[in-house]
């Protein structure tokens, strides 16, 4: 079955061109040119991935992103013409998984989309445990479930992948570059801000006190590692 893509972009030429390109790459695109109708279209289309322009009429891409994130973990890739850190970080913090800067190469975009659609080939019944022993974070990889203190934590697929990547090798320190490659599927070194922002988002969900993390630890000058199991 072809993966469905919801393209939220007000530039009709770009949307049409994206459509041509996506169809030729084996996707099934749907379009919405207006931010205020994006959420309705999202509920209707039920896409596997969303391409979201940040500058939209009606409702800003940031708000659309928040609205979608509030009800679904569906991968969102921002299309942005702005390269300023503020804009990118704001987009990522509002819940986008990844971003591509216009003008992007079509292959780059499809690679990112495929990386977001790719799921771990789960070895049956794997469960992982990290964090402090008195309050561990339990991960059921197959069921895509994270539990801490008896409560289920709802993570987006990306956050889940990030957590699993760290939890699978609890003693290893991951550089941001390695995480980018393993979780986001980047072959070349790219923007490490992606990692920083998503680690923050992940911490805000799994940590008891995000200011003093116990599950996802920072290793100064190197990167991150999982807290002791």
């Amino acid at each position: 079955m072809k993966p469905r893509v919801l393209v939220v972009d007000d530039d009709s030429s770009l949307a049409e061109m994206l459509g041509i390109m996506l169809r030729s790459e084996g996707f099934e695109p749907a379009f919405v040119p207006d931010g205020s109708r994006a959420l309705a279209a999202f509920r209707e289309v039920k896409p596997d991935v969303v391409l979201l322009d940040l500058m939209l009429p009606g409702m800003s891409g940031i708000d659309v992103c928040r609205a979608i994130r509030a009800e679904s973990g569906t991968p969102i890739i921002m299309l942005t013409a702005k390269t300023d850190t503020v804009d990118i970080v704001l987009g990522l913090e509002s819940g986008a998984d990844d971003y591509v800067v216009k003008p992007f190469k079509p292959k780059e975009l499809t690679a990112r989309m495929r990386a977001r659609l790719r799921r771990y080939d789960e070895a049956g019944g794997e469960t992982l445990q990290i964090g402090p022993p008195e309050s561990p974070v339990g991960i059921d990889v197959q069921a895509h479930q994270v539990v801490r203190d008896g409560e289920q934590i709802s993570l987006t697929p990306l956050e889940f992948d990030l957590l699993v990547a760290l939890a699978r090798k609890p003693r290893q320190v991951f550089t941001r570059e390695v995480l980018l490659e393993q979780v986001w599927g980047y072959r070349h070194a790219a923007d490490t801000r992606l990692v920083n922002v998503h680690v923050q988002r992940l911490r805000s969900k799994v940590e008891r006190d995000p200011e003093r993390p116990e599950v996802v630890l920072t290793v100064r000058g190197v990167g991150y590692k999982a807290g002791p199991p």
Partner: protein
Amino acid sequence: MNPAARWAPRPDTLAARVHQHLQTAVDRLNHRSRPALTRLSASWRRSLQLRVATTTTLVTGLIVLLIGVFLVDQIGKGVLKAKRDASISQASLGLDAALAQFEGLTPGDLNGIRQAVDQITANPASATATLGAGDLFTKVIRSADQAVNRQLPVGQPIPDELRRQVDRGAVAVQYAPVRTPSQPGEVPGLIVGQPVNTQAGAFELYYLFPLTAEQKTLGLVQRTVLIAGLALVLLVAAIAALVTRQVVRPVRVAAQTAGRLAGGALSERIKVSGADDIALLGESFNDMANSLQQQIQRLENLSRVQQRFTSDVSHELRTPLTTIRMAAELLHGSREDFAPELARSVELLTNELDRFESLLADLLEISRYDAGAAHLETDQVDIRGIVERAVSAAQPLAGRHGVELRADLGDEPVIAEVDARRIERVLRNLLGNALDHAEGRPVAVRVGADEASVAVTVRDEGVGLRPGEAALVFNRFWRGDPSRSRLTGGTGLGLAISLEDVRLHHGWLQAWGARGRGAVFRMTLPRVAGGPLDSSPLPLEPPEVLA
């Protein structure tokens, strides 16, 4: 061994100990006085008020001293002159009385003479009454045989000089110490001597006037002048300090306000009251501040407009460029089906799109710097990781050029607080530049570090730089040799952006080059973002050039 020798202090050690004690004392003195001196000299240099008050006090003190000395001198002279005149006229009255006593006596009548002398010496009161002040004593000496020699008070010597003058028959006056019965010892005095020539013989009559009262008067005058002078000096010092303070205080306020203005508090103003010169200073200062504030706000607005424009251009250009890019890629993907001219056209289109994009990206980046909108996103990272990434990213280009790319990263981690994205961009630019100009010879990358800074050098052994070009390479769109084509199709902005990237870290980006010997680019960064930087751990010039 002699026990005494054991206990006696050896001379050399004693001298050494004394010397040591002295040294300690001198040191302690220096320690104590030097800070005080330094403080004094510092406040002397800093405080206009102190300087003006001190100078005024010194000058006034000198003038008051001169006037006081002059006054005391004049008054003293006047008082003594009056005393002398009065004494002389008193003495001449006494002479008349003495002459009357000797009336009718002969030189042989010793008893009569003795009586007359007693009369004269015993009764000076008649003369005193007319003088009206001080004790008056007389003394008579018969010059011929010393037979009648009445002395009052006992032991009062008469200066020889005075006697000689009287011997010659003249009235003589001399200041000399005199004795009085009322006071022990001698007091300053005046002696008036005159010859008394009678039929009974030649006598000398001396009047002694103590100057005690005059001395008292003069002492009083001196004290009064001294106290008045001191009071005057103090008054002048206080006035000087007060007046200077009135002038200095507004100047200090202006200086403080100027300091705050310079520190960025653009709405700082001076409170102006009155219409004097000081108020004028305040008004002019405030006018200047107003005009500065307006200029700065105008420039800030311009900068905001520029930033906004950059952002808008970015968005407006990038969206259609994305569409073009996708269309071109689509055409490029199926160029095998096209006629050769069409296929080549599509290739050119795609390649030039790449160039156009990087040029656009660089232009936007540099205009962001020009607008002052660039910010650091620092993090503690191992510089070697960034170098490694940049080197591996440059390997394909090195392969195309047939250049060997070597990296000496050292063994220790080199942690510094940098914006990894910008530093990697700098290194990619430096590597691309070096590979472009390497002419097939190897390119070497080195990482070095010391306590305060980290450095990366990129060295090629290619065409190098002509003298003076090392300063030009960072200029926008500068090309060393216009006839050389660029394989990488650089935008001409790479090194200019790199320089801005490094400057944002408060670091250095420097170039060295010699014709035919290659070029070295060195990036030096402080370990802590914005930290001070005074030296680089790696030399800019290659060692063999220095040797």
